Structures are given as C-alpha cells and as structure tokens.
C-alpha cells in the first residue's frame, strides 16, 4: 500500500467541495482486488468552443519533425513527449449553410452531419464507441462533464436543436449523453454509495435490492412499450437500455477502490472550475470509476467573458475578429489560457500513479479540439486538433500535417483500433485509419 502525499487543496463549487490531496489512503494493487493486472487505458474527448487563433495554435516545426510548440502551447513544453498536433484535418458540419457552431459541436466526436430540426445524431461519438469497448466493468461507462451550465432557455444555434448542437457525446442511437456541470454533484456521482462502514453483507443486500427494483420496472416497461406508437416506443427503449445498463454495473459499484477526498466550500472562477474538472476526471480515471470521459468547456457560441486575463467581451463575439488586431490579440490570450489549463490537466494526470507503476497520463489518450477552426471564417477544415498522453501507441512529440485533408473519422478509426475495437469505418467519412500516427 502506498501513501500519496500532495498537500494541495482543490476547490469545487456550486454545492461546493474541496478535494484534499492526498486523495487516497491506499491504492491497493489490482491483483489484490482479484482483478486482472492489466492496467486500463482511458480516453478523454475535450471540447473548447469557438475555435482558435490558428497562427498561434500551430507548431512551428515542420510536419513529421519533433515538436516546436507555437506560442499558444508554451505551457505544454514539459509534455512534448506525449503531445501530437495534427494539421489540416477536416470534419463534417451541419446540413445548412448556417449553424456552423452547432454543426461543429455535434460533429466533433461523431464525424456526422448535424441535421436541422432533429433531436438525434445519426450515430455514436467516438468516446461512446470506446466506452462500449472498455467501459463494461466500471461504475460508469463514461462521464460527460460541462464547464458551462446547460442552456436554461431559448434555442441553441440557428434553429439547430440543443440536443445535437450542445453535446459532444452521443450513444449508439445518436441520443446525447447528459452533461454534469455542478462540481459538487460530479463529486457526489463519483463517490456516492461509498460507505466505509458497510459490511460485505450490507453491500450485497443493497445490490440485490437495487437489482430487484430495476427488474420489476423492466418488465413493466417492456409491456408498456408494446402498446406505444413507434416514436414513443423508441423513447421507452431509451428507458429500457438505461435500466439494463445500470443494472449491469451494480456489482461494480461496490468495488470502488478509492477513498473519496474530503469536502469543503467556495465559489469558482473560470480557472478554478476548469481545474476542478481536470482533477475530477483525473480522479475518476485513477479510481477506475470510469475509463471514458468527455468535457465540454463551453456551450455552443459560448460567450464567456475572460475579462480577468485582459480579454474582456464575449468569447464568441471576440472570435468573430474580422481581422481586427485587438480582437485577435484577445483571442490569442483566450487560447493561451485554455492551453494553460490543458497543461494543468496533464500535470494532474502525470502526478497520479497508475496500477502498473507508471502514471495515469501514460495510460490516457486525450483528444482535444473545437467546433470550428477560425472564428471569422467558421471553417471546418484545418481544424485545431491535438492528442495528448500515452494511452495509444502513437508516435508523439511531432506535428503532423495532412495536406490530403482527411476527416476526423479516420483519426477516430485509429483511436478505436488503439482501444481494442477493430472497426474499419466510422462516421460519414471514415474508411481507413489515419496514416502517419506511428512513425
């Protein structure tokens, strides 16, 4: 048993929580818990809104050469060995000329056209495909987190439904996965049910009770479904699938291997919020509560005011820079800020030991991108894309440009393959793995 000592305090907000590090009193080796000694891989999809100033985003090194980071990524310098920046990739968007933001968001992890007036995508996102592959034995198949609260009113973007334009994770049926925003709640979701005083018999009892309740409603729902029209039956299918999924994980929950951290209080600045999300997802990975996560830092056309870093105004408005030097300067600052928070995430993951003696970062792959490339042009080609972490067997520490302009889907096929899924197609354009990921 190892004791971890850090001594930093983290602040969560909303209902308000502090995570005190050390997180764990003990980290029991996997073998001792009766599980196989194969360390799990993790996948994280990260969405940053409104694109980036691509001049600053792009590495200055030549394609294929070791990375020389552009100014925006200066703080990622310590992580170059586990960083891969891809150039000239494109993604699908939406079916009308307008709604580029919604189109880019729904497409970001699915590589599918976002369809007007439709509540679903036509297929799953890559994180959910990976979750199907590796998420069967954890408390949660995946976790979807948000840096901005869900749209509480109004429409989302140019008539595109919030279901598709304001989510990045979609299940096999293209139904969005709901996002958790309140950091206190996220904490509770990760650690609820943890009761150190419960005996094995208690836990077995609780699990049996949960299963029997879910069984009783499953039967009722199946019966009900037969009476409903097609559309309603599809909704009941969601209920049935959800109940079955939860039921299949009941026994897993009791194997949670972590002592949850302690709670305290505070309200959150944007920086604190981002860093709390970083820490929560890192915790969730290390504790094997989930192996797949997605984070949407902002909603569609997020207009976050980054006044505290000298970029006052709405982020979305600023991203429509129109060539104005002041606006571009602000946009660069925002991008830099976002990359600094990514550096924090990588630092956090790197600081957590994994059960194979390496770090959680070594066993995690992060896919980081946006809904568009340039905020003025609203283009979906030459997208900002970076991969981080050692979770896939890619050759990192490079910038690789793809003048042939492949779609995200090719990269997603490679990622799926890296996580053990042998798909050969994905999304609307994926026909082959992306070349050049392994030098």
């Amino acid at each position, binding site marked *: 048993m190892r004791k971890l000592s850090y001594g930093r305090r983290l602040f969560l907000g909303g209902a308000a929580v502090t995570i005190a590090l050390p997180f764990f009193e003990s980290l029991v080796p996997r073998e001792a818990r009766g599980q196989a000694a194969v360390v799990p891989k993790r996948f994280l999809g990260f969405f940053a809104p409104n694109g980036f100033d691509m001049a600053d985003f792009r590495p200055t090194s030549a394609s294929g050469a070791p990375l020389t980071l552009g100014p925006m990524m200066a703080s990622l310098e310590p992580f170059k060995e586990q960083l891969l920046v891809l150039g000239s990739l494109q993604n699908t968007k939406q079916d009308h000329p*307008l709604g580029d933001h919604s189109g880019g968001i729904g497409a970001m992890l699915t590589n599918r056209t976002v369809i007007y007036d439709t509540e679903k995508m036509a297929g799953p996102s890559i994180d959910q495909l990976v979750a199907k592959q590796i998420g069967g034995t954890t408390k949660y198949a995946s976790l979807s987190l948000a840096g901005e609260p869900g749209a509480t009113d109004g429409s989302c973007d140019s008539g595109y439904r919030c279901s598709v334009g304001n989510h990045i994770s979609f299940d096999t049926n293209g139904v969005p996965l709901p996002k958790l925003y309140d950091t206190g709640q996220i904490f509770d979701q990760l650690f609820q049910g943890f009761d150190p005083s419960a005996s094995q018999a208690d836990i077995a009892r609780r699990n049996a009770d949960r299963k029997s309740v879910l069984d009783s409603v499953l039967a009722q729902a199946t019966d009900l479904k037969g009476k409903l029209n097609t559309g309603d*039956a599809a909704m009941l299918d969601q209920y049935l699938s*959800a109940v079955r999924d939860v039921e299949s994980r009941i026994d897993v929950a009791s194997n949670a291997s972590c002592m949850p951290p302690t709670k305290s209080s505070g309200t959150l600045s944007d920086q604190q919020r981002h860093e709390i999300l970083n820490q929560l997802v890192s915790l969730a990975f290390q504790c094997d509560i989930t192996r797949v996560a997605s984070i949407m830092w902002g909603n569609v056309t997020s207009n976050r005011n980054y*006044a505290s870093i000298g970029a006052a105004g709405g982020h979305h408005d600023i991203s429509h820079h129109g060539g104005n030097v002041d606006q571009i300067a602000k946009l660069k600052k925002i991008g830099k800020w976002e990359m600094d928070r990514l550096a924090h995430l990588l630092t956090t993951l790197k600081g957590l030991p994994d059960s194979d003696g390496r770090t959680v970062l070594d066993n995690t792959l992060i896919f980081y991108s946006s809904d568009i490339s340039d905020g003025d042009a609203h283009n979906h080609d030459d997208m900002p894309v970076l991969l981080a972490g050692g979770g896939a067997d890619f050759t990192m520490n490079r910038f690789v440009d793809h003048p042939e302009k492949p779609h995200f889907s090719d990269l997603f096929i490679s990622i799926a393959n890296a996580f053990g899924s042998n798909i050969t197609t994905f999304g609307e354009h994926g026909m082959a793995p992306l070349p050049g990921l392994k030098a």
Partner: protein
Amino acid sequence: MPKLNRTAVSSLGVGSCVILPLLLGCTGVMSGDPGSHGQMAPGGLTLGQTGGGTSSVGGAGAGGATANPQASKPEVDVMTIRRLNRTQYTNTLRDLLGTKQDQGSKFPPDDLSFGFDNIGEALSLQPLHIELFESSADTVLAELFALPATDANRMKVLGCDPQAGGHACVDSTVLAFAERAFRRPVTEAEVAPFVALSDNSTKAGSTAADGLKLALKGVLMSPYFLYKVELDASPTAKDVHRLTAFELSTRLSYYLWSSMPDDALYASAKSGDLLTDPGLTSQITRMLAAPASQALVTEFAAQWLNIRRVAAVKPDATTYPAFNADLATSMQTETSMLFSNLLGQGRPLSELLTADYSFVDTTLATFYGMPAPAGSGFTKVPLAGSHRTGFLMGGSFLTMTSNPTRTSPVKRGKWVLEQLLCSPPPPPPAGANIAALDSGPPLSVRAKLEQHRAKEPCNSCHSLMDPIGLAFENFDGIGAYRTSDQYGAIDATGTLNTANGVATFNGAEQLIPILTADARLAPCAASKVLTYAVGRGFSNADATALTNVLAATDKTGQGVRGLIGSVALSESFRSRRAVGE
C-alpha cells in the same frame, strides 16, 4: 435589381427544409402574414396588418389570426411521450410525499426544444438519469419513513403499519400509492411485482418498513410514474381520439401547475366530469386561481420571455459596475410579476408591451432612478415619468439581449422578431464577411450598424432587425436609461416598412404601438402556449389550431388568462393520435 428570394427555414416547423444557399431571405419589407412564420413570402412582407376591432388578446389587428390554408397541419398531431422534466419531478415528489427537497436540481439540465424544457422528443433518458432517480427515491422515501407517525404527509402515504398490518397493509399502501403516482386507477395485478419486492425483502430478513420502502421505490422507478403515458387503440391506429379523463387530468395539471393532479382534479377525472366542457372549464378556473399556477410564470413565461437568461449573462464588471446578482434577480422578479399580473387579472396580451405600470423593489427602483417603495418587497408602481413602458423597457429584456460590454441592437431586434412575432430572420448567408462590430474606428453602435447594413447581402434582413433594436438605444447594456453615450447623443429613431406603409418612430415608446398592431403577436403567443401545453412544436403551420385557440380566447374577453384556458379547452390539447395524417 432583381429581388432575391429564399425559403428560409422555419425554426418551429418539423420536417424537411429547403435551402437555396445562393439566395437571400429578406426582401426588405416585413410581413404581418402569420402564415409565413420563418418563411419570406414572395413579393415582400410587411410589418403588421392593422385589423379592425379590439381583441382581448392583442389589441388591434390581433382579432383572429389569418389562417394560411396552404400551410395547415392537423389540429391534433402526433407528439412524443413526455418524461417528467426536472422541475416536474421535484414538484411531483413534493405533492406525492410532502418533501421539500429539490431532487430535480441534481439532474442534468433537460434539453430545450422550441424554447422549452418540456418537449417530449428532447427529454431523452440515459443511465445517469436512472441512477439519479434511484438515489432520489431512496432519499425522499427515507425522509418520509423517518417522519413521526402522526405527520400528515406520512399518513397520506403510510396509512397503516406494515409491521402490524402485514401483507394486507403492504398491499393497500402500494395500491393507493401507485394510483396516485401513476395518476390513474391501478389493478392488483399491476402492483403485484412491487408488492412482491416487499414480500421477498422481508422474507430475506429486512424489516417490514424497509420492505415497504422497496415496494414504493419500485413505483417511483416505474415508467408509468416517470412518463406521462398516453395510449391509443393500437400503436398504428389512425384515428384522432379524445384522451381518457386521467390522461387529460395529467396533461392539465402539468400544464397549469407543473405537477401531478391534486385530489379535486383527480376526482373530476374519476367521475368523468373532466371530459365535459363545463367540467373541464371549472377545473381550469379553479386551477388558475390556485397558487400552484405560479408554475406558469416560473416555467412558461420564464422560458418564453427568456427571463432565466438574465441570470446567465455576464455584463462586464468594468463597463457596468452597477450590475450584480441582486439586481439581476430583481429584474427577473419584475418580469415574472408583470406576467403574473397579466395572467391573474386577465389582462390583454398587448399589455405585456404597453403596461404603464411595473413591479419594483428598492434595488430595482434605485437602478431605474425611481423612488424606492416602502418595505423590502416588490410593489406595483406607475411607470409614468420613468421613460419605461412594459416588458421591453425593463431590465430583463434589455440586459439579456446585450453583449458583455455594449448593447446589441441586432440581438434586441432579433429577439422581438423571434419570440414575439415568431418571425426569426434567417441567419447570415454563408460566406458573408461579417466584420466585428467591435473592430474598426470608434463609432457608435448605431453608426456601425448603418455601415454594416449599407449593402447586400446584409441590408434586406438587417433593415428588419436593426431599427427595432436601435429603438432601444436609450437603454444601455444593462437597461439603464441614457440620453447619450461616449459617442454623443443617442439617436433612437427608426423606420420600418409595415402593411400600412412606412412607419417612423423615435424611441421605443413609439415602437410599441407598431408592435402591438402587428397581426403576428397573438398567433405567436398562442403557438408558444400550445407548444408548452402539448409538448410538441407549434408554429404558424398549425394555422387551424391557432385560429381556433385565438377565436376561443377572444370570446373569453380575458386576455392572457383566456389564452391559457382556451388552449386547455382546445382539441389540440384534449385529443391525440398514434400516427400522423
């Protein structure tokens, strides 16, 4: 120069959309044709058709929406089964068990569709929801069982002691609870699986109380509780048919109260009275008079008028140091109380825009430069002399349509077109090189917008939006009144092409009558109410439904209250079908 024309997409309609990317959507003149929601009819559109006579709903011009016979969906159309949304879940647990806990707030936000969070198609359900339903049920049932045995809420659910009363007590308790939770009569056979949960649990050694708790949890996890189930003769039956009394009572209570039926409503369903016109009417009247109807303010109006957005916007602290959370809350309360007054007093819809009174507390009064009312709460005050009239000149609208550091007349104009006239301008054409308003030489917002819309492809659509928004330029980005800004004196004049010719105005006060004369105002409001009430999107394509509701509303002479009630009495609300036409 040829007039460019494009069929823009309706943001409220369903089905396929035709978009011809090279053509533009606006022809420079705004329409009063309520059949053209989102679509720009060939030959130009005009703002407002002044109709004759008065209407209890919208003043001149609103008496009877002109139905567009070419674009009418059936009055009763297919809608998707609705799960309880967060708010409804919290409220239902409150009414079932007496709990004061807000369990719904633990859930991820429900996705909006057509501007509301209670639309069936968007209320998806994922494993996370099931887990949260489980833990919520555990929490509220534990709370219930821990209450003293004499507690009224406890006794309403737990009418007997399962320890002493054994299986018979469990049986009767579960039966009664399920009937309330499922909002309809239930059979022994239906609840048998839940009763079995209790039997099996106690056989395995649990206490009688814990066994019963498990059975009740099953009820709270059932799809009959979590969804508002409505059935047809068969899944493919083609007929339009009236809802059952219980299905109707469920629709009605969630529409007016965002919660389950109370005993009186349920009784009127059980007796069949609710299926009659007088029976339904009397329930509507009773329910609108009840405090629970405040849900129409906090759920319907809050979403229609985007009141919630006020809490989400972040005005820049340097530019607007006066803005803070307290002021935002007061602004929201002002609008809520205005709508509540329109509803409660049966005021005309147009009064939303023309009200010469408002509701202020000290915080808001100080901000508006008005004398502070006595006491710490809100008081109804006359607006005379304050430069303000109605909702559009209150802090809520003005703040939530602004950018962090300045006003956005485009957003203000767009909001009016979208939310009040159901005529959203088409979004900018692809490839339109939109220079940021904040870039370039320092000019007033007005001047910059004039430059922006100086030519096509911008002019035809912006000439509809900008003048409306610019009329409000006397109110800054957080709604404070001003006569000048850093660029000089405020110019709030404008011109709009209307059905009655060119209308000019100087400031928002003069814009208001132009808006209230617009024939689209009443049908638009009706479509919003119908959408919220039925749980599917209504637009001007639902001309029959809108016409009937507005005609019925006019007959009531009760303005907004009449509109709310007329929707509940409409066929759209009282009937359903399994498959579309």
